[in-house]
């Protein structure tokens, strides 16, 4: 949400400023109300706010056990998620922090594994190999023995030795560190490592667009015609990176009525200094300054122009575990039109937008916005007679997307489940 006076408007930067001075409970309340009032609404702003808040929560949580820490993060996380359930990145960040704590707690229990595994981009598929469902206790209990055993697959859980089940601890976290450690030393290390992990998540959020744009030259070729939609910074940076080396044409759909003003500004390069985005990196020169032809079109012209387009590049609000995505309204029309013309659809998205939630009910994911953007309240007579709806998002099924480009590289939609399982622990998916 653009604002001309960042000092007065509550938003991400004011929240981050106040985080240091306010007591933690005030900060939590503050973020909840910001989320509820939609004063923080970009995916990345929400993710950043959540990560910073959780960092404060963890650093202020004076507890001696990992289970207490998990509990605390869970309770804060639940409140944040309840404040704005459609902002799925909040839940994603909470889950990743929970996963960090669990990893660290388990690492500390394996005495020989002093190596920090708090990488923000875990490449090892350990979370998946555990396959520890909330109900599947035996594989959880095996955590301590894992270093000596090959990964236990969930398929073997049927036959595996029942011993661990008999002596199962209630949760992996509740197991005390044991006699090898003095309690004090243990917590200090655990918290420090978790905080380091959260810092890495925050770094990742800052760098994600840069990392994604590194793949731009592989996907955008000379003289191509690219169609895009909305003023997504990820997409813009992706295109800008390609523009440094190649000449191509961009067809930009304006995404009326929710995002058209920002989109116009992005295209013309007169984008106002945006409070939310300023805090990451002020927006650079527009595409036209690099000599790229940008054609701004109304959304209704998408189908007509699609036959000339070589590639569709879309930003997104969040990506779901089945490979579908929730993106700005109008995305599905574009994706569908691209399908009809057999034009490849590429979605650029940071891994932090990838949610482990399975979309059981697509309708519940769609948020409805200000109806006055469609029909201004000045037309009072009309407003009374008709029902105006302004959906902010579209659900795009996985089969309409050809490729996802995340900060980890390009993935087919059917492969996303794997990235989900690399980043989130199964026991955290529905906490």
């Amino acid at each position, binding site marked *: 949400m653009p604002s001309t006076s960042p000092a007065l408007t509550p938003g991400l930067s004011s929240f981050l400023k106040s985080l240091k001075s306010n007591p933690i409970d005030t900060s939590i309340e503050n973020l909840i109300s910001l989320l509820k009032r939609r004063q923080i609404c970009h995916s990345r702003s929400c993710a950043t706010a959540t990560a910073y808040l959780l960092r404060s929560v963890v650093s202020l949580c004076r507890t001696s056990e990992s289970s207490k820490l998990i509990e605390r993060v869970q309770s804060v996380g639940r409140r944040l998620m309840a404040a704005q359930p459609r902002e799925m990145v909040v839940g994603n960040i909470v889950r990743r922090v929970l996963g960090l704590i669990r990893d660290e707690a388990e690492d500390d229990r394996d005495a020989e594994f002093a190596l920090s595994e708090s990488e923000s981009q875990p490449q090892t598929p350990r979370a998946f190999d555990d396959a520890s*469902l909330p109900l599947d206790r035996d594989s959880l209990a095996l955590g301590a023995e894992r270093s000596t055993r090959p990964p236990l697959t*969930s*398929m*073997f859980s*049927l036959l595996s030795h029942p011993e661990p089940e008999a002596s199962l601890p209630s949760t992996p976290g509740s197991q005390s560190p044991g006699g090898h450690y003095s309690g004090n030393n243990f917590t200090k290390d655990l918290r420090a490592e978790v905080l380091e992990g959260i810092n890495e998540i925050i770094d990742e959020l800052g760098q994600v667009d840069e990392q994604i744009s590194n793949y731009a030259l592989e996907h955008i070729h000379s003289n191509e015609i690219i169609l895009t939609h909305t003023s997504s910074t990820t997409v813009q940076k992706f295109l800008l990176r390609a523009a440094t080396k190649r000449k191509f044409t961009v067809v930009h759909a304006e995404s009326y009525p929710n995002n058209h003003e920002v989109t116009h500004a992005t295209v013309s390069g007169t984008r106002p200094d945006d409070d939310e985005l300023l805090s990451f990196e002020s927006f650079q020169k527009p595409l036209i300054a690099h000599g790229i032809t940008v054609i701004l079109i109304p959304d209704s012209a998408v189908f007509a122009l699609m036959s000339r387009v070589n590639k569709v590049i879309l930003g997104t609000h969040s990506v779901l*575990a089945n490979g579908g995505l929730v993106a700005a309204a109008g995305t599905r029309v574009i994706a569908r039109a691209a399908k009809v013309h057999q034009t490849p659809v590429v979605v650029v998205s940071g891994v932090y937008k990838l949610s482990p939630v399975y979309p059981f009910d697509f309708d519940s994911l769609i948020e409805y916005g200000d109806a006055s953007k469609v029909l201004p309240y000045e037309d009072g007579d009309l407003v009374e007679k008709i029902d105006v709806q302004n959906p902010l998002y579209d659900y795009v099924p996985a089969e309409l997307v050809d490729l996802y480009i995340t900060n980890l590289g390009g993935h087919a939609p*059917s492969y996303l*489940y*794997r990235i989900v399982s690399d980043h989130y622990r199964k026991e955290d998916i529905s906490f």
Partner: protein
Amino acid sequence: MATTTESTPKAGAKPFDIVATYNELLRSDPDLTMPIAAIEALVLLLTHSPSSTISETLDLLAQSTAHLKKAIPNPIGLSAGTDLFQRYLITTLQRPGQLGPAGDFKAIRTHLLSNGRLFIRRAKESREKIVAFGRGFIRDGCTVLTNGGSRAVASLLQKAADEEGGPSAVRFRVIYVLSSISKKTAEACGEPEGMETVRALRAKGVPVSTIPESAVAYALGKADMVIVGAEGVVENGGIVSRMGTYQIGLLAKAIGKPFYCVAESHKFVRLYPLGQYDLPIEQHVIDFKSEEDIAEQSQQPVDTGVDRPVELESVDFTPPHLISALITDSGVLTPSAVSEELIKIWF
């Protein structure tokens, strides 16, 4: 477990017959799936054989598995169980630790022999897990189209119905596709497969409509989703299921309805069928005949009854691109996740 004690003395008298044991297990417990019955049969086999070395045991298992597969007309489901058992033994033996090569072979033997009922219990528990994962799919006001006699689907639907009146009440309707009664089933119970589930659901207050297979395309417009069971889930994420599932999948895709498959992860089987006729079983579904052939056949009237003993059991293959998601006990998976699960146990 009643089955274990029943079959032990009988098999003790004469040489152990794995095929008879397998059939007996399946008959005695209607809740038992084919892979689990196969695992149970192998466990019982080990009980009866005095083998004490690893290679002897593996050899015995391989022989008996081959024998069992040959004797059963459709071994896809059971091969999932036998493969899983064999892989489990090999992986456990290669693993360092108490049960590993350095350890006592007897330990793993005793573990397997003493835990027959545990495996069955876990297999049934995995259905509970599936229910926990699948609950979210059945929402208020939705209509589910299903077919066949899958126990996993039945337990999912019944569980959702049970919660009616509770805090998370689901009011849903079911369209049940019943296959036409073949001669063989008519003799057995006089009703098509799945009637039991239909009755149970109706008793729980779920409105159920039963339709013939020919009405699937007509009825799909009223359904919100299709949920089917599976006999085996193959490597590419496709499913081998009751005859008629493939056409429902095709229709659901054409009409744009989600098509979910409910299956326990022990049904994942290492097969890669390229099409309908690439399954490792012989089915006499398509049987071309001329007048001459019929006349010839009528001269041996004894044969006609036994002509198609597997008609009820016939299966088809639903390719992965028709399946929206697999609801398994290790979560809701995309079809491509199946290969990874299989790779993890085989390599």
